[in-house]
Each structure stands twice: as C-alpha cells, then as structure tokens.
C-alpha cells in the first residue's frame, strides 16, 4: 500500500531482493563484535557467555531493523522516472527523472555475488545525498534498469542481460586495462602505512594486554649485547615493512583485480574488484580536475596514476575517481585526450615561484625547530625528536620550491608539486568556481601571495593552489585566469546553444 496519492505518478510496487535481509544483518556482526570486545575490555569481570549473548542480541536487533526497512521499502520504474519510497515510520517518496540520472553504478560485494544480487547506485548530478540506492536487487534487474535508463527497450534488455550475465559490452572501446601481473606489481607501491602503524601498536601494547608474552622477545633480556639488539631491531623492522608491503599488495589486488576502463557514451566506464565487483561510469561532464600522481620510486620507474576529481564528492570528500591506478605515461595520454583534458606544453613554459619563497617555506619550520630544541634542553629530551623533524622540513624547503610549478596553457591551468609524491593537476579554465589571492603576514613581508582556485568536489585541505607568487604577479595572474575562465565559458555556452 502506498501512502502517497494513489493514481498519481509511478506506482512503487517492487521490493528489494529478500537476500538483502541476510547481508544487512550479517553486516553488523563485525561492528557488534568490535563493540563487545571493547565492552569486555572495559569491564574485566564480563564473562564470555554474557558477551556472546549480547552479540546475539545485537544481531537479532539488526535483523529486525533490516526486516522493517526492507518491508517498508518499495521502488518502481516508470516510463520516465524511478520512484523510491522508504522510511519505517516517516515515509519518503523520491522521484528521480531519467534525464537527471548521470549513471547507474552496479556493485557486487561477496555475499551479493553468492546470492546473485547487486547494489545499484543511481547517480544524479547533485550531491551524494541526492543519490538513489537500491540495496540490493538481482543482477539481471540491475542491468535491465540501467538499460531502461539508457533508453533501450526494457524487455529486450532484460533478456539480453539474463543471457549475458556480467559479460561486458563489447561495443565500448577499451582505454586502459591491467593484467594480474601489473595489479600485483602496483600493490608493492601501495605500501600500507596504517597497517604498519597498527602492527607497531600491537607490539607496543600487546604485552600489557597479555596478547604477547614478554619472554617471546629476546629483545627484553637486559644482558644482551648491543650488536645483537641492533640486529634484532633491524630484523623486526624488516619483517614489519614486509608485512606492510604484503598488506598493500592484498588490498590492491582486492580493489583493482581485473581493472578495465572503457569509453561509455557519457564518460569512462570502470570495472574492477576481486571480492567486491564494482562498475561505475565517470561522466565527462562531472570531471573537474585531472590529477597525474606518482611516488618517487614509481616515478623513477616510469609509473603514474591518473584520477579525476568529480562533482558531487561524498561527505568524506572522496571526490577522486581512479581512471588508471598504475600506468605508463603513454597509457595516460589517450585517456586525457578522450576526456578533453589538455596535456601540459613544453617543459620550458613551466613557471616557478620567486626564490624568496624558499625563505618563506623554511622560516616557520626553522623557528619551530629552534623552539623544540630549546624545549628539549630546558624541559624534556623527547622534544628533540620534534626538533629533528621540523629541521628536516626546513631543509626540504628548497626541494619543495623546485617541485612546485605552474603553467597557464591554452585551455587549462597546470599545477605541479610534491616531494615524496609528485602530482600534476590539470584544471580546464571553465572549471573554476572562485579565484582567491591570499597573503599571510609572512608572505606580505616578502611581497608574496598565493592563488587558490576553488573547484567543485575538491578535497577540503588540498585544493588547487599556486603558492608564493610575486604579489604583483599574483594579481595579474588572477585577472588573467578570470578572463580565460569567462572566455571558455562563452565558448561552452555557444557550443551548447
């Protein structure tokens, strides 16, 4: 029964696949177990039986909640729109017209693959909150829905999808793909720092929590010679690094297995995943900034990654969509060409900040280092570590200055930078949202100013910025960027009409 005016609009008469209940219920187990573990650690006397009982109660609760939301969730597909009605108590009816749908992303997690279902994300031009989710429907339904939205006949498409299964559309030209070997190799560069930190945390605290017996560690014995201690430390460090690398390879394999990028009608279609299969289209119209990135080892070996900052980044600011996670520059070029992003011109045209920028970059860390050093002598020796780190940062200033460059091209602004990870950002002029000239007191002292160009879907902290231009030059460049912006907008408007 629908609470919404009967006979008006599309009737929402379809339910999600019942397997959704199982996957949604099971999804809470890790959380419930984690919560209970924390509870168990807090209350020392909590016995295992009680903890298990509470986990079961949690699962039961999640099961009931999953059932209620499944029972109260309906959707319908009409001639021109998708309708979703949801909400256990307060009902919500969302109508998404087909014209507003940018794409339908289909994702299959492990359980979903067992059940033959898929999570369908209906992407609209707006923010993440405006998107529609169908979690989950059968894979055939998902493909049928996508084909309806694409304007094909429903029945024909459903039959085709049924027959084809997950087979990919042969008509779309492949722009980039990665074999198993390359995925594994790229994993070596995705060294997991978090994982290593976690291992160290366990080593540090494991003893206290009783997870590791102190006698396990030869390191503990006080009468061990220094040489032995050094060797043992190095071995431990090596093992942890190896583990971090292995974690990186596994994570990359799970994410990028079978990576394939094809040219779809509206943009780039990306398929990937080992356990969770995902398929998404990155619409060209939503691409704001292209980013070519490379760590210093990968760069030395000639490997780069390409991603696009897109409109409608989710709440966590993850607006970047990977287009080629590990590629040769010759493989990146055709993708850029296909999406209309220009390549930077010749090397000589790139500009650097004036030399006094080095002073500006080194000043704060140097002052900080001096303060930390003073603190190390006067208060606590531990501050010495901070002093060393800040000093390193100050010494890195010339290198950071060398790497930070920009280039005003014919169609786009190029900004490069980064010492450990080098990145080049490409922003077509028309993608600017606002242009800002900023000068901190230090910068004004040195007659410097930075230009920040705000773009849609940019990460909050690391947007596009040209740091430390000569103040007069910054003002001139801002005017020029504005003029170029208006010109490109005029061209785009003319092309549309």
């Amino acid at each position: 029964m629908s609470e919404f005016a009967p006979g008006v609009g599309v009737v929402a008469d379809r339910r999600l696949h019942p397997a959704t209940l199982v996957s949604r219920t099971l999804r809470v187990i890790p959380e419930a177990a984690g919560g209970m573990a924390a509870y168990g650690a807090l209350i020392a006397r909590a016995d295992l039986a009680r903890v298990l009982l509470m986990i079961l109660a949690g699962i039961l609760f999640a099961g009931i909640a999953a059932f209620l939301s499944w029972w109260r969730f309906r959707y319908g597909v009409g001639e021109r729109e998708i309708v979703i009605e949801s909400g256990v108590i307060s009902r919500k009816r969302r109508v998404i017209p087909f014209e507003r749908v940018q794409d339908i992303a289909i994702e299959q997690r492990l359980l979903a693959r067992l059940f033959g279902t898929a999570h369908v994300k209906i992407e609209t031009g707006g923010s993440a909150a405006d998107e529609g989710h169908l979690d989950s429907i059968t894979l055939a339904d998902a493909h049928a829905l996508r084909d309806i939205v694409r304007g094909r006949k429903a029945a024909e498409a459903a039959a085709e999808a049924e027959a084809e299964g997950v087979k990919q559309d042969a008509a779309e030209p492949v722009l980039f793909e990665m074999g198993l070997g390359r995925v594994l190799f790229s994993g070596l560069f995705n060294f997991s720092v978090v994982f290593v930190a976690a291992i160290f945390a366990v080593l540090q605290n494991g003893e206290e929590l009783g997870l590791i017996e102190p006698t396990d560690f030869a390191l503990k014995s006080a009468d061990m010679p220094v040489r032995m201690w050094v060797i043992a430390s190095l071995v431990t460090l090596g093992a942890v690094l190896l583990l971090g690398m292995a974690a990186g390879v596994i994570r990359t394999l799970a994410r990028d297995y079978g990576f394939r990028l094809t040219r779809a009608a509206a943009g780039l279609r990306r398929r990937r995943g080992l356990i969770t299969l995902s398929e998404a289209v990155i619409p060209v119209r939503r691409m704001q900034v292209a980013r070519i990135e490379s760590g210093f080892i990968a760069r030395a070996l000639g490997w780069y990654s390409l991603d696009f900052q897109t409109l409608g980044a989710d709440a966590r600011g993850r607006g970047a969509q990977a287009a080629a996670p590990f590629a040769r520059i010759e493989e990146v070029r055709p993708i850029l060409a296909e999406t209309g992003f220009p390549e930077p011109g010749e090397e000589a045209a790139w500009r650097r900040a004036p030399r006094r920028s080095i002073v500006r970059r080194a000043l704060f860390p140097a002052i900080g280092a001096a303060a930390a050093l003073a603190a190390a002598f006067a208060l606590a020796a531990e501050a010495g570590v901070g002093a060393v780190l800040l000093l390193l940062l100050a010494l890195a200033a010339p290198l950071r200055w060398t790497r930070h460059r920009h280039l005003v091209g014919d169609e786009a602004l190029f900004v490069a930078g980064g010492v450990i990870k080098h990145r080049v950002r490409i922003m077509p002029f028309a993608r600017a949202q606002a242009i800002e000239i900023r000068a901190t007191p230090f910068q004004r002292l040195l007659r410097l100013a930075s230009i920040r160009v705000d773009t849609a879907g940019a990460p909050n902290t690391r947007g596009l910025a040209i740091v430390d231009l000569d103040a007069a030059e910054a003002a001139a460049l801002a005017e020029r960027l504005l003029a170029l912006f208006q010109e490109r907008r005029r061209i785009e408007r003319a092309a549309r009409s």
Partner: protein
Amino acid sequence: MANGMRQLHPNHLTLLRVRGAIFALAFVAVAALLDATLVGEIGLRFGVATGGAAALGVALALWLPGRRYRAWAWRMDEDELRIASGVLVRSDTIVPFGRVQHIDILRGPLQRHYGLGSLVLHTAGTRSAAILLPGLEVAEAERMRDHVRARIREDLV
C-alpha cells in the same frame, strides 16, 4: 587596494564597534569575577586581571573594528563580484556569477537595527563554497542579488 573597490557602509563600522563593545564587556565581567574569586590564590594583586582585560577590551572595541572595517572592500562588475578582506591574512576573492548556485541575504539583529544585510553567494566549490559580503545597505544588497540572479539565468540559457 585595487582600483574601483568600494568600502562597506559606514554603519557597519558602528556595528563592529558595538559588537566589539559587547564582547569586551562580557570579557571584562568574566575577568572581574575571576579576579574576585580565583586569581588571588595564585598571588596576583586584585585589579591586575580586570585592568588587563579592560585594556584588551578597549582595543577590541575601538582599535580592531577600524582595522577590520578598512580591510573589507568590494567591487561588483558585470560578470563577477570581487571581495577583499582579512586583517592578518589578506584575501582577495573573485566569484564569477556563472558559478553561483544560490544567493542569500542574511540579516542579524544588529544588522537589522542599522539597516544592513550580508550577501552570501553559494558556489559548488568546497573551500569557498559560501562567500560572504557583510555590511551592505539592504537596498544595495537586494539590487546586487537581483543582478546576480539575472546573470545566472542568462548563463543557463
């Protein structure tokens, strides 16, 4: 300051001073309270904290508002709005109207009293998603809003 930039309405300076005075009074009141109860225990003479707070308060109410008022400047062109602001960190922002998603006029209680309003331009960007220009006469702010609205409509066609 760049050519043709306009200052905010003079009433905004008065508003900043009033706001500063309110903050300063609250600040001095808290300091006096602490002075009477706690500060004596750490060996500070009565009146030192209150006096210090009062000096800071005077700066807050008299000196800072002037600096802040003079830091603001704006210019409305055919296709973009330019706003300069910031005492310590200077900022000069240009917003092309083609990028404005929607427009607000905000009026706080003090602003209403002085016949002022703030114009807020929302863009799809992240860092400067809402660009604020305070201290405009209401009629002026409304004129600007209508102009921007007309430009957005033209841009859509």
